[in-house]
């Protein structure tokens, strides 16, 4: 059976109030998210933030303590043919070392009703055609990642869930993966969710970002908003620090005091200048300061760092 797909429309992933504890460790804490089709969403967080646990709950491998995770409104395990709806590759993709790449796919092919030809086709898609008959035990990490990706494509699903797919890929592989994922989302309309603990790794790939830390959501926006946050830091020199603290607090901007003024984030220099003018505050210097995107990520995921002036 070959599937003819003219327009692929991915499904929406909804996560609602999801929580999970392992003993005393609160791995995921009241997490709510929406992942939309047609874009690549980066699921970011430092090591141990709860990314893998969240994905395993979404896929029915780990039982949530509370909350729900659905695809197209239904839990994964209740989908009629789940692997034809969601293709998932989890961290440290797992294969029997004595099985060939092709046979690994052939094992799962009956579950999505595809013939051996489809197995060869997805192997070719991820660049493993030449290694099809080699045993997985001899594969490099990057080759295993590619095989994991091929496995997700077997059922031609509208949703792809990939846990750290760039791990172990060479620079060429990363560029290839980027183009491939963007193609799947943008041209084909699939839902693509990619986790990573390094923002830089997925920065050029993703359209939306979701950032979690210690199991909680700390940020959810298009990547462009995160980029804007990176630029939006303004250094103000003023003799009237108290006046500015009042103003900035009124405006709801974040700030830290530095010698001779403030460092304000969440606003542009123009916004700060206009507000100072309107409030008749004395202003000696006003400068927009760039912050590396990675610093924004660190600041979001580790509040302790937020106190350290950039």
């Amino acid at each position, binding site marked *: 059976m070959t599937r003819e797909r003219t327009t692929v429309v991915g499904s929406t992933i909804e996560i609602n109030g999801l929580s999970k504890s392992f003993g005393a460790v609160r791995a995921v804490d009241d997490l709510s998210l929406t992942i939309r089709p047609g874009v690549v969403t980066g699921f970011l967080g430092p090591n141990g933030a709860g990314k*893998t*646990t969240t994905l*395993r709950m979404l*896929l*029915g*491998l*780990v*039982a949530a303590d509370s909350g729900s995770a659905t695809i197209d409104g239904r839990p*994964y*395990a209740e989908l009629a043919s*789940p*692997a034809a709806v969601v293709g*998932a590759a*989890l961290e*440290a993709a*797992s*294969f*029997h*070392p*004595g*099985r*060939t790449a092709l*046979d*690994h796919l*052939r*094992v*799962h*092919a*009956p*579950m*999505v*009703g595809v013939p051996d030809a489809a197995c060869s086709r997805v192997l070719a898609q991820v660049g493993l055609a030449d290694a099809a008959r080699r045993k997985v035990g001899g594969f490099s990490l990057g080759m295993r990642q590619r095989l994991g990706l091929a*496995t997700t494509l077997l059922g031609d699903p509208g949703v792809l869930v990939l846990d750290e797919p760039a791990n172990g890929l060479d620079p060429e592989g990363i560029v290839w993966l980027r183009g491939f994922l963007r193609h799947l989302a943008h041209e084909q309309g699939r839902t693509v969710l990619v986790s990573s603990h390094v923002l830089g790794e997925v920065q050029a790939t993703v359209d939306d970002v979701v950032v979690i830390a210690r199991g909680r959501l700390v940020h959810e926006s298009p990547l462009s908003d995160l980029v804007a946050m990176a630029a939006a830091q303004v250094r103000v020199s003023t003799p009237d620090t108290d006046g500015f603290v009042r103003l900035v607090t009124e405006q709801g901007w974040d700030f830290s005091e530095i010698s001779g003024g403030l460092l304000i984030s969440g606003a542009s220099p123009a916004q700060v200048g206009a507000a100072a003018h309107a409030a008749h505050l004395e202003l000696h210097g006003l400068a927009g300061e760039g912050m590396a995107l990675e610093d924004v990520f660190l600041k979001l995921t580790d509040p302790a760092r937020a106190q350290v002036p950039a």
Partner: protein
Amino acid sequence: MTPAVRSEWRKVTTTNLWWVLALVMFAYTAFLGAVMGFSLAQQPEAATGGMGDSALSGREVAQSVYTLGASLGYVFPLVAGALAMTSEFRHQTITPTLLFEPRRSVVLAAKLVVNLALGLVYGVIGTLGAIAGGAPVLAGLGDGMHLGDGEVLGNVAFSVLALAIWAVIGVGLGTLLPNQVAAIVVILAFTQFVEPILRIGFAAVDALSGLARFFPGAAAEALVGSSLYSTTGMLDLLGRWEGAAVLLAYAVVFALVGRFTTLRRDVT
């Protein structure tokens, strides 16, 4: 269900384990068949250790020799069945398995079905091994092969069935004990050491002697209908169908307990 069965069947046939075990099993049972055929055909009294009736008939010798696969070789299908489940945990292939089939009972049921079929293959191979090793010896030294004897062939058929059920028990055991090393150690310790000793020990104590019949090895011998141990008259066995029921009960209980322990847990 059918796709899951096909998937499980492919898991077995795409790795080398099944035929390596089958080959070793054939060699092992052929060797035992020849050795036991040799000793029983020549001097039946010696092999009984003087405990049983004096001499075995030629038919009884054939029955014992041809069912050696079931009396001494059942560890092969048992290990094969157990590994079908433990290797999923050892290599973490349980994750893709459950992604493609999240209904865990279906995965378990498919493994039970596939291993029953695979167990029949081991049954045929192990029984053929014993016949291949034993029949020529019986023909040369004993009073013939007895391969045209319906009663002998009946035992041979039940020996195949018993070996098949051992593979199903293996799946249950592997589900109960997903740690591969632990499962193999338990299988080897129990089949090679614990059960034989307990059976002899229980047989010596009146209050316990009846219980020994319910051990899995004893139940399998009851199903086969003739065996090394029983023809020697050392032990009391259940009836054939009672033996089959007890053997199947082990498979069902192990699988059910495994379903509600191991297969209920988070897969991380």
